[in-house]
């Protein structure tokens, strides 16, 4: 048990001027990189780790935590302003963020994203600081069967986003899963669908698939649709009222349950290693839409949509550190990179970390709180700057965006092959958009695919092929029942309602 003196000493270490400046520098860099389509905070952390060798351990980890948290806020900026999500998490934010921009409320959308992100992040940090150890034990009890059921539930919740055509939604989901089977199979490590390309042994690079189908496809489609005349990438009306630019306290408080639900989903997903913030963002969005009295307003610029996705994806960040700090298991790519940074600085994450390095751990918690405050303050300054930059001509914004996508994917995949893959998925994304196949669902399925197949194999082995053995896994049964309910509530019920409305509209039409 860590004593109070150690906790206070750790927090005291964090709140020194030099440490605050390191965290602030990390946040600024993270927000900047997060706002660049094609870049990611994971890539920045990976690049920054060697530079932190000369820092003290707390400054180094604080700086990297700042990069991570800043990136979560920055990722929403291009998604909201130009519908160009740099990361898959942000694609959920774009669903309502970009329509708000089109309605002339980009500043308001950005502010809501910032407040929601900081709220979700702070909530998960508080969970981490107060109940990390017991939660880690719960996470440890989530075996392959429970994780498999959780992934099924993620798919079930996401079914609410399928859109108009169920068959198109199914084809997009299944195609995403199919693409994820390229490479070595998780159980036997035999190659699949390589077609003579050894680069495919580890599958299609995640960044190539996500950035190609979500960002590059959108830019190219927009360029192809341009009909002459240079316009700013974003037009913000000059005569905006204060209400159009700010998020009032009443609006923020009206979203309190949405924010809380998002944060809880984010924490729940974050403590389970390997699922990730993209699934959390979409699960939160789908459940908020499901709970709303006016679900039809979502996708048309509903501020609750932004609150739901940003609170959830940011809450994953803090929660993913719970298994990292207490068990030494990374819950996300960023957490895996942070493990590397911990080891470089002579720290061994795991059950003994609190005992042996209690002061440093509480220093880290202090740095996380500072990072949240910096995120809020710098975010408010930064979003004005970003919204100004984005009012530059489309020619500059989109040409630079495409060059950045190439550079980002080249660096994250370590070669030109990943860039070619990005272009293939850009073409696929454009075709899917043109034919109304849900690209976002395709990408989420691709992300969840490897974990899904691994859990499927492990579950089949644990249950020995007998479904009745599922009775030994009550948590999995609850999750599967919730999945069935979600499919009915989100998928079948709206379709039945729409049919009913159609029938009643037809019968009330005197011409029929």
């Amino acid at each position, binding site marked *: 048990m860590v004593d109070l003196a150690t906790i206070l000493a750790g927090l005291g270490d964090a709140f020194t001027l030099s440490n605050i400046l390191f965290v602030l520098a990390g946040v600024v860099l993270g927000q900047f990189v997060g706002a660049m389509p094609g870049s990611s905070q994971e890539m920045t952390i990976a690049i920054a780790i060697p530079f932190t060798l000369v820092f003290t351990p707390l400054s180094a980890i604080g700086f990297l935590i700042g990069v991570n948290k800043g990136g979560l806020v920055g990722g929403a900026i291009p998604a909201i302003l130009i519908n160009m999500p740099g990361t898959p998490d942000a694609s959920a934010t774009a669903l309502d963020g970009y329509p708000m921009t089109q309605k002339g409320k980009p500043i308001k959308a950005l502010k809501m994203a910032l407040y929601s992100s900081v709220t979700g992040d702070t909530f998960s940090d508080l969970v981490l600081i107060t109940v990390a150890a017991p939660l880690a034990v719960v996470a440890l009890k989530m075996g392959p069967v429970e994780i498999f059921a959780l992934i099924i539930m993620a798919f079930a919740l996401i079914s609410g986003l399928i859109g108009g*055509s169920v*068959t198109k939604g199914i084809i997009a989901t299944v195609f995403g899963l199919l693409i994820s089977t390229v490479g070595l199979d998780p159980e036997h490590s035999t190659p699949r669908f390589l077609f003579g390309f050894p680069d495919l042994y580890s599958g299609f690079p995640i960044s190539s698939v996500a950035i190609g189908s979500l960002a590059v496809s959108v830019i190219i489609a927009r360029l192809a649709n341009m009909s002459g005349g240079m316009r700013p990438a974003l037009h913000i009306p000059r005569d905006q009222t204060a209400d159009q630019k700010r998020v009032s306290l009443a609006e923020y408080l009206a979203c309190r349950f949405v924010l809380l639900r998002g944060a809880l989903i984010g924490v729940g997903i974050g403590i389970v290693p390997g699922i990730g913030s993209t699934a959390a963002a979409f699960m939160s969005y789908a459940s908020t839409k499901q709970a709303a009295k006016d679900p039809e307003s979502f996708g048309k610029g509903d501020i609750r949509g932004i609150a739901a996705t940003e609170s959830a994806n940011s809450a994953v960040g803090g929660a993913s550190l719970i298994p990292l700090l207490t068990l030494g298991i990374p819950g996300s790519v960023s957490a895996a990179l942070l493990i590397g940074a911990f080891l470089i600085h002579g720290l061994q994450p795991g059950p003994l970390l609190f005992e042996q390095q209690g002061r440093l751990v509480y220093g880290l918690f202090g740095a996380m709180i500072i990072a949240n405050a910096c995120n809020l303050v710098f975010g408010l300054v930064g979003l004005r700057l970003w919204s100004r930059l984005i009012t530059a*001509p489309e020619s*500059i914004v989109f*040409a630079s965006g495409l060059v950045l996508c190439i550079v980002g994917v080249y660096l994250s995949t370590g070669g030109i092959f990943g860039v070619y893959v990005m272009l293939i998925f850009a073409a696929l994304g454009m075709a899917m958009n043109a*034919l109304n196949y849900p690209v976002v669902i395709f990408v989420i399925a691709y992300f969840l695919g490897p974990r899904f197949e691994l859990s499927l194999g492990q579950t*089949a082995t644990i249950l020995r092929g007998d479904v009745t053995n599922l009775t030994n896994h009550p948590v999995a049964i609850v999750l599967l029942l919730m999945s069935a309910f979600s499919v009915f509530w989100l998928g079948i019920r709206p379709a039945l309602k729409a049919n009913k409305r159609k029938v009643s509209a037809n019968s009330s039409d005197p011409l029929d």
Partner: protein
Amino acid sequence: MTFERIVTGGILAFGLTFLFLVMPQQVETVSYGRVVPSTLPGALLWIITIAAAVQMVTLKDDADFNTVVVIRAVGLLALMVAAVWSMDRLYFEYVAPVLALILMLFMGERRWYWLLLGGVAIPLGIWLLVERILDRTLA
């Protein structure tokens, strides 16, 4: 036959081709384990095939296309492929400004100061940041 029905037919053909021709060639046969390498892709290909068949029957509307836009999009993609191919053979710092300039001119940008900023300053700034400051190579 509508364009969308043709595309759906293509998806159906893709499912069947992969199921019966490609998968036996590209996925190794393993005789042990409950989930073998072909289990998941096989199941997924069946679902794609069935979903496409259902869609073929139930399709009502056709996709709305503008041929000029499609040609422009294909041209832009071809330009990107050519640029990436060139980057692999020449240097990023030579190809990226040319790509950015072509894209800006394609969009109708003619103001020299914006062309200078977007076509020269930004690509070279990225190159300086990545290659010189971060010490990472760009092709």
